[in-house]
């Protein structure tokens, strides 16, 4: 990708050259479930070994949406953030995160190559973080309602009305990309090349599709619990979901299954990034290295329910298969979340694309 990086402040443009003394503490901003120190469940703990190893005390703040993370990073209170693709570029652009010197991170080696140097974690080949885990937004369905597995997203778009009131969708502007993925396959005339790079017309088409969809939506979801409940009770029978939710539902003996439809899908690949105003850069580098280490990475991604960032990590997990870890084919069907910006990501220069703000207000319009 080519990003202007206009907002980056000069001072932190350069990655750290070498490591120094550990500061004794580090402050993390992370998705819930990414940083567990055993306080919620004594058996879930990969922070304590880190603290013992490095002497860096860890404080954590969790966020619910990428946008919240973005906001919180502006405070400069956090050294490290786990950013999804819909936040990472904005963080870079705002100069809130610094490039990382991967040489200082031994575990960077083992990470899947297809996760490295991507539009959502690097700018002009300069890495701004270390990939953590990734996953796909899957189509979940109720096996009673769908005796044969659907193969297309049309069950939540063009055929959504068949299950009116029982369809769900992810509650975020970034969900517009899901519609774009669907349109890419079904409305080739629109010429969508990249679901995160939509011009006005393409966005309008996606919005129309979503507005139609809304009439059939029972509710939008953004947290596990809501989704799990809805599928267990049958309030929802079809919609986007995550592998981890399917795992939970299996535990509940709910009649659900997930599939990656033929159109492909969106997904996330999260990246650990270091704040440009980090007060504890050495501990931050230590964390980035630690969380990329097979054992820690396995623990964290397994708990959260996503594929790990390296093959080595799979040795510590039994469920790598379910998440298609390392399956490059599978991974290639995923359009990882990235931030839509005016400069089209697909390389078009004759039009300006719609940016995230436009998506946000479009999303509010859609929900009405």
């Amino acid at each position: 990708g080519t990003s202007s990086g206009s907002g980056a402040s000069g001072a932190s443009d350069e990655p750290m050259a070498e490591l120094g003394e550990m500061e004794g503490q580090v402050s993390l901003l992370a998705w819930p479930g990414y940083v567990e120190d055993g306080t919620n469940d004594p058996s879930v703990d990969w922070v304590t070994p880190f603290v013992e190893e490095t002497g860096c005390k860890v404080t954590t703040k969790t966020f619910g949406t990428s946008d919240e993370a973005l906001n919180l990073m502006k405070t400069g209170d956090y050294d490290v953030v786990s950013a999804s693709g819909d936040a990472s570029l904005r963080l870079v652009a705002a100069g809130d995160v610094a490039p990382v010197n991967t040489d200082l991170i031994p575990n960077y080696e083992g990470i899947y190559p297809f996760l490295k140097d991507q539009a959502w974690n690097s700018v002009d080949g300069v890495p701004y973080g270390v990939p953590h885990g990734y996953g796909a937004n899957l189509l979940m369905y109720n096996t009673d309602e769908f005796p044969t597995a659907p193969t297309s997203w049309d069950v939540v778009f063009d055929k959504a009305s068949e299950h009116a009131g029982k369809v769900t969708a992810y509650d975020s502007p970034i969900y517009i990309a899901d519609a774009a993925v669907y349109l890419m396959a079904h409305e080739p005339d629109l010429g969508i090349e990249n679901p995160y790079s939509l011009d006005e017309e393409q966005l309008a088409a996606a919005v129309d599709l979503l507005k139609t969809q809304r009439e059939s939506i029972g509710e939008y979801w953004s947290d596990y619990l809501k989704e799990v409940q809805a599928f267990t009770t049958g309030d929802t029978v079809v919609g986007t979901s995550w592998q981890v939710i399917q795992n939970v539902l299996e535990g509940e003996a709910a009649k659900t299954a997930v599939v990656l439809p033929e159109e492909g899908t969106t997904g996330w690949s999260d990246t650990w990034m270091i704040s440009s105003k980090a007060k504890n850069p050495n501990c931050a580098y230590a964390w980035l290295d630690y969380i990329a280490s097979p054992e820690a990475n396995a623990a964290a991604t397994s708990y959260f329910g996503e594929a790990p960032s390296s093959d080595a990590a799979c040795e510590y997990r039994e469920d790598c298969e379910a998440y298609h870890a390392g399956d490059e084919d599978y991974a290639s069907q995923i359009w990882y979340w990235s931030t839509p910006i005016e400069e089209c990501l697909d390389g078009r220069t004759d039009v300006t694309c719609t940016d995230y703000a436009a998506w946000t207000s479009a999303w509010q319009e859609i929900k009405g």
Partner: protein
Amino acid sequence: MRLSRPARVTLGVITAIILGVVYVPLLVVLVNSFSTSTALTWPPPGFTLEWWGKAFQSAGALDAVLTSVQVAVISTAIALVLGTLISFALQRFDFFGREAISLLVILPIALPGIITGIALNNFFRTIMGVPLSIWTVVIAHATFCIVTVFNNVIARLRRQGTNLEEASADLGAGVWTTFRLVTFPQLRSALLAGGLLAFALSFDEIIVTTFTAGSGVTTLPIFILNNMFRPNQAPIVSVIAVVLVLVSIIPIYIAQRLSGPADQKR
């Protein structure tokens, strides 16, 4: 009023039904805390004591409770002082702007929490440049808790008049002695009632807290919210809620006893 028997019975039945309905969701929570389902599905597929065990081992939950208690205690204390001062000023003096001040006290509770939240967030971070912390939460909570103390204390002052204080001064006690020996003991139950409500308000506040809590400050509602986004934790939250309800009966009961039946409950 001596209502006719049918009227009394009807009223009693209506009250019982409404209160019954009020307790249905709480019952659901209670049942869920024993449910094997992690998704709080109904009816529970099976019963287990696992969550109760886990909840009491959950250091995070305990920490969150402690943080909440800490925040609630400090902000209640601040609200008690500020609320009492304002009540005295407004009840004992007549001055220009009195009405404006009483409106000002009500405003933080009357305006939606999200507005208070973003206003304070913006104020602390961008204007004052102070990092969010537990203290910013305390400041925010104290602000909207003032009103509960204010209302209780001013109602008491209104009813009580200045007689006892005059009697004390008359017998030779200075301003401070009078407050310590006469005024304060008279206000105690009003302060208790107001303080209890302030505590409850702060303890369960989530919206303003979301916007004013610094990193690592996890109050109980935030902990619960986080757990909604975290797999396999939901029933622990039910356990916490059940425990809170049970524990809360004690202070409410004490406050009731102290304030007497004819007393102001708010």
